[in-house]
């Protein structure tokens, strides 16, 4: 829109026509106080904090609802306005309990900040304040009416942002109160967005309530360990006797690509890290058949000795390695390198929840067509094939809803079941569970008269789209992916995204935790065993050693524990999972919140994770792999390029190629990076990943500054015919579950039970 010129406090400014005065002022660095105004949510004009004087208008005007006009003369600093702001605060504080010393929001409260800045330090009033007792609305949400300033942010974010509408307003006058529409408790997604947006301490979370003061915490922004969307979550940790313990998860500075959003898991399900069942000592199986605590040195020496012996006696083909969907890229990269190098095995895999290789293969070299999570916020049209973002990809669902609300994007849904996003859909096509392959084939086919009218309409509408973001779930795998990509590529500017389940599912795959690929989808000549094949081999006594890093195949696949009796089983985990229970050695490992590195979300956005906490007694997977290799007598410099004269490869050469050290040094110099001094520095591995893994050579500076970097992996040459999609097993998580890890989150378990009961009651 055309720009208009106006003045604020004597300064001449310009802004696009239609810009709200409050936004125009903020853009020019002029602060207008506001409680009820919240960018992205509907306007309220309720708090009256933003009043300004506009010439020729009889009354003070709300800056949050008035658009700038040509020639407008605005005053924001006059005595009249100072008094208006001050009196608004006096009025708010009159019924406010002023229990700042014990309020969760103390120190992070907009009402405190405003009072500090705009006055009303003394109170004129002596009568008794209105009171209501605090209420608990769900396992995570508490409400304290006296602190509420009725800005309606919570109601709006629930209605508009979440499309849940669990909150409303009851009664009128000073008796008005925010209340759950379900009368006494919240029937909702328990995302805590209401708490997050609450400017004061009226809405608080059970996990943090009355626990500590915000200034006693260290706040570290890192990436959520749960689903594949990769939200930034800020973890507040406090020194406890067993380490730095996380007491709070939130979206403190809203600087992540998730903007305002966090779901129930990112906000509350950090508590697995504090679970009393957490392993903090290595365990070694004793002659009596029981696991008993052991010293780190002894446990690692045992693992190294047995790995070496088995490799020598039975060869690498008798060994297997299973990686994790929640370890860092650096760890996954190192693990596959360790497997293919020192262990000399091609048997490496992880819990695959979707067919990334199939996707990469189908896309071929068309890397410009990779979508990112940000595209979901801006794409004018979206096609969603399979998946249920609301349950499985809450951030994607949030972005799609926001895009719909703000930009009126057109959402097309093809699914075998009803999903909540259909509320926003322009068209919904219900297909059978087995009908996905047929559907995408008919999309791609040239006109097919036999198509049912509904499908034909759906296809025709899609064909008219110029910029379509195509998102597909694990329902589509293997050869079925190609027609969808082919269809998308026939449109002017389509982009694609593939939905996988966990924080680093995509990274695990990109880093080559796969029997057929080294990092960056480079095909290997000899394909190793997949995860199910390894478990089968173990059952047939054909697998002499199995190294499981952060997975629970026994529990997840419901295997008989005896099936691993004759396999030397080493498990690195946080908990004594079903797999760990039958292990020979269990090494307690750090969670994603207790280490640094990078992860790649399911859309291919690479982001840094930062160590926010620690638990005494555990070690990172990175450290453990290196220590085992070291004990095995391996050359650590071949695994991790550190110090001077680093060498490295991706494991495929089974040794050190001549000239690698030079190449690494040249790359570092060209990228203005120093050699890393310690093999335990994950950045040393990141250097190598950036240098060697196709698609990962992103802007390091921007990455470290926290800007998600798109990885664009092109299919390597001689891509195998089969991508092994038969061993894909979607997690089928809901909003309130998160794989094996989720079972160790007490809060998530409690919320899950709470909502399940609600559903049961609703169903009668």
């Amino acid at each position, binding site marked *: 829109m055309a720009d208009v010129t106006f003045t604020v406090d004597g300064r001449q400014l310009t802004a696009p026509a239609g810009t709200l005065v409050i936004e125009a002022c903020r853009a020019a660095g002029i602060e207008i106080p506001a409680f009820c105004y919240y960018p992205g949510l509907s306007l309220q004009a309720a708090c009256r904090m933003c009043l300004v004087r506009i010439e020729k208008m009889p009354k003070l005007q709300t800056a949050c609802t008035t658009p700038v006009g040509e020639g407008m003369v605005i005053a924001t600093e006059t005595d009249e306005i100072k008094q208006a702001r001050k009196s608004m605060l006096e009025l*708010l504080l009159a019924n406010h309990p002023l229990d700042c010393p014990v309020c969760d929001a103390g120190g992070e409260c907009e009402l405190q900040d405003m009072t500090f800045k705009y006055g009303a330090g003394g109170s004129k009033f002596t009568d008794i304040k209105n009171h209501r007792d605090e209420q608990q609305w769900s396992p995570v949400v508490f409400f304290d009416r006296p602190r509420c300033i009725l800005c309606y942010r919570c109601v709006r974010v629930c209605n508009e942002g979440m499309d849940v509408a669990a909150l409303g307003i009851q009664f009128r006058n000073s008796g008005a109160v925010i209340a759950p529409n379900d009368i006494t408790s919240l029937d909702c997604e328990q995302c805590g967005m209401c708490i997050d947006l609450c400017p004061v301490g009226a809405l608080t979370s059970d996990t943090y309530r009355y626990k500590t003061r915000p200034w006693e915490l260290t706040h570290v922004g890192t990436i959520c360990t749960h689903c594949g969307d990769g939200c930034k979550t800020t973890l507040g940790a406090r020194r406890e006797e067993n380490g730095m313990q996380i007491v709070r998860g939130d979206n403190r500075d809203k600087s992540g690509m998730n903007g305002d959003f966090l779901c129930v898991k990112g906000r509350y399900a950090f508590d697995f890290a504090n679970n009393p069942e957490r392993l903090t000592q290595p365990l070694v199986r004793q002659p009596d058949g029981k696991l008993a605590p052991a010293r780190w040195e002894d446990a690692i020496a045992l693992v190294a000795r047995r790995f070496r012996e088995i490799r020598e006696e039975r060869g690498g083909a008798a060994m297997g390695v299973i990686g994790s969907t929640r370890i860092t890229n650096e760890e996954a990269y190192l693990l596959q390198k360790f497997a293919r190098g020192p262990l000399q095995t091609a048997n490496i895999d992880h819990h695959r929840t979707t067919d990334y290789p199939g996707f990469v293969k189908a896309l071929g070299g068309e890397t410009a067509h990779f979508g990112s999570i940000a595209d979901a916020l801006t794409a004018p049209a979206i096609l969603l094939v399979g998946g249920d973002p609301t349950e499985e990809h809450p951030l994607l669902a949030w972005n799609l809803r926001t895009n719909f609300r703000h930009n009126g994007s057109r959402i097309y849904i093809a699914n075998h079941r009803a999903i909540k996003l259909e509320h926003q859909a322009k068209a919904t096509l219900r297909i059978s569970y087995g009908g996905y392959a047929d559907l995408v084939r008919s999309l791609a086919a040239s006109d097919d008269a036999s198509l049912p009218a509904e499908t034909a309409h759906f296809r025709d509408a899609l064909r008219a789209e110029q910029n379509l973001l195509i998102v597909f779930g694990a329902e589509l795998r293997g050869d079925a992916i190609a027609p969808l990509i082919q269809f998308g590529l026939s449109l002017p500017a389509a982009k694609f995204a593939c939905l996988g389940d966990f924080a680093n599912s995509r990274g695990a795959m990109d880093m080559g935790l796969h029997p057929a690929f080294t990092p960056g989808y480079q095909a290997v000549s000899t394909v190793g065993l997949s995860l199910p094949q390894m478990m089968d081999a173990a059952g047939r006594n054909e697998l002499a050693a199995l190294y499981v890093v952060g997975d629970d195949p026994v529990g997840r696949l419901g295997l008989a524990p005896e099936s691993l009796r004759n396999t030397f089983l080493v498990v690195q985990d946080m908990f004594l999972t079903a797999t760990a229970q039958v292990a020979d050695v269990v090494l307690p490992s750090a969670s994603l919140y207790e280490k640094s590195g990078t992860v790649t979300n399911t859309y291919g956005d690479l982001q840094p994770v930062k160590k926010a906490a620690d638990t005494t007694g555990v070690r990172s997977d990175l450290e453990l792999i290196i220590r085992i290799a070291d004990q095995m007598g391996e050359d650590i410099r071949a695994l991790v390029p550190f110090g001077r004269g680093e060498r490295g490869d991706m494991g495929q050469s089974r040794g050190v190629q001549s000239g690698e050290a030079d190449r690494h040094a040249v790359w570092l110099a060209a990228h203005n990076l120093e050699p890393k001094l310690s093999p335990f520095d994950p950045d040393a591995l990141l250097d190598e990943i950036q240098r060697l893994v196709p698609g990962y050579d992103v802007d390091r500076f921007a990455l470290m500054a926290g800007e998600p970097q798109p990885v664009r992996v092109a299919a390597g040459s001689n891509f195998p015919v089969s991508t092994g999609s038969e061993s894909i097993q979607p997690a089928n998580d809901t909003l309130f579950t998160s794989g094996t890890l989720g079972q160790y989150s007490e809060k998530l378990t409690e919320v899950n039970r709470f909502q399940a009961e609600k559903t049961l009651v609703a169903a009668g």
Partner: protein
Amino acid sequence: MPTLVSHPEEVRIVSSRFGQGAAEIDRYLELGGYQSVRKAIDQGPDWIIAQMKASNLRGRGGAGFPTGMKWSFVPKQSAKPKYVLVNGDESEPGTCKDHLIFLHDPHAVIEGTIIAGLAIGAKMGFIYLRGEYRYLLKIMEKAIADAYAKGFLGKGIFGSQFDFEVVSQTGAGAYEVGEESALMESLEGKRGVPRIKPPFPAVVGLYGGPTVINNAETIATVPHIFRIGAEEYAKIGSERNGGTRLFCVSGHAARNGVYELPMGYNLKRLIYEVAGGIRDGRPLKAVVPGGSSTPVLLPNEIDIGLDFDQVGKAGSMLGSGGVVVLDDTVCMVDFALRTIAFYQHESCGWCIPCREGTDWLKKTLTRLHAGAGEMRDIDNVRYLAENMLGRTFCPLGDAAAMPTIAFVKKFRQEFEDHLDGKPCPHARHTVPELAAV
């Protein structure tokens, strides 16, 4: 049925059919009803609006906005349906005129609604009655049904090519839904909280369509304008204030009731001649000229003409036409408390200054009146009201603030008299009942 009063100086136009059984459609027809709408159908929208402008009719809901001008703001073309909305939420204390219209002359409201609809090109009208007027809904609904039966509503009204539907509805009992945008929210089935303006209802109103909202008296006046002729009608009133108005006299006048008088009629004369002076010949203490939200006038301020401009010049407002007469037995602190208690109760709670301001005004005045006040409480009352004024989301906050400021300004001594610990030195009598139906 409340007894009707009368006085020879009355000019009975809107009230001309009161007490005549005009709620029955045949009687209404006998008394010349449904003639104006036929004329309007024949002449068309431009003519209707021109006539309305010429009549100088100003809205009877309180703000006195020129009705013809309001109708002319509605865009001719609209993608969404247009509506006429009759505001019968009448809840301002001291006001009880719309009630009589619904009771005695419901067809005038229907006829006025149709004419407004013809003027703006609407095909549907809503008549919204105050929640507490539930018992009038029966009368209104019967009148609507009778009009349908005669073909005055529905498809091809009066044999013309125009269609027009009318529906009546009550609120759930909230003063605030008399505010036009809260009224629309309420009618749409939502919480009765006002909307952000602009957009104004004439552009984006009920269900998003352009909507004309008028007070019930305004609408009931419309057919009479076409009966008498717009110029004739304008001549009855004062400058820029056409016609007559229903004044609701309550309080300590000798003959309380609703009188129809020309706009500009002298307030003092209304009290002393028409309403028979003060009961028992007591001295007059104060007059609230236009419903409880209007600033109080002292006895020496009432020699003014009752129209929007003259009362405004006297520092108050003509408002809803509710004239509350107070004699010397009234405690003004009690009266202020009574007034604020109403606005506190009725504040919708949406915005800070009104929600919290009325709450603290009520708390402070309650204690002050009970004799536990301090000097700073009096200042606080004024401070609160002055800091609410002009800063609330809708005019209800002003409605609470304006009279409060006037009470403290004009009767400060009485407030101070309450400070010495003795409860209400003036409480020889309680505050009069405001006209309430």
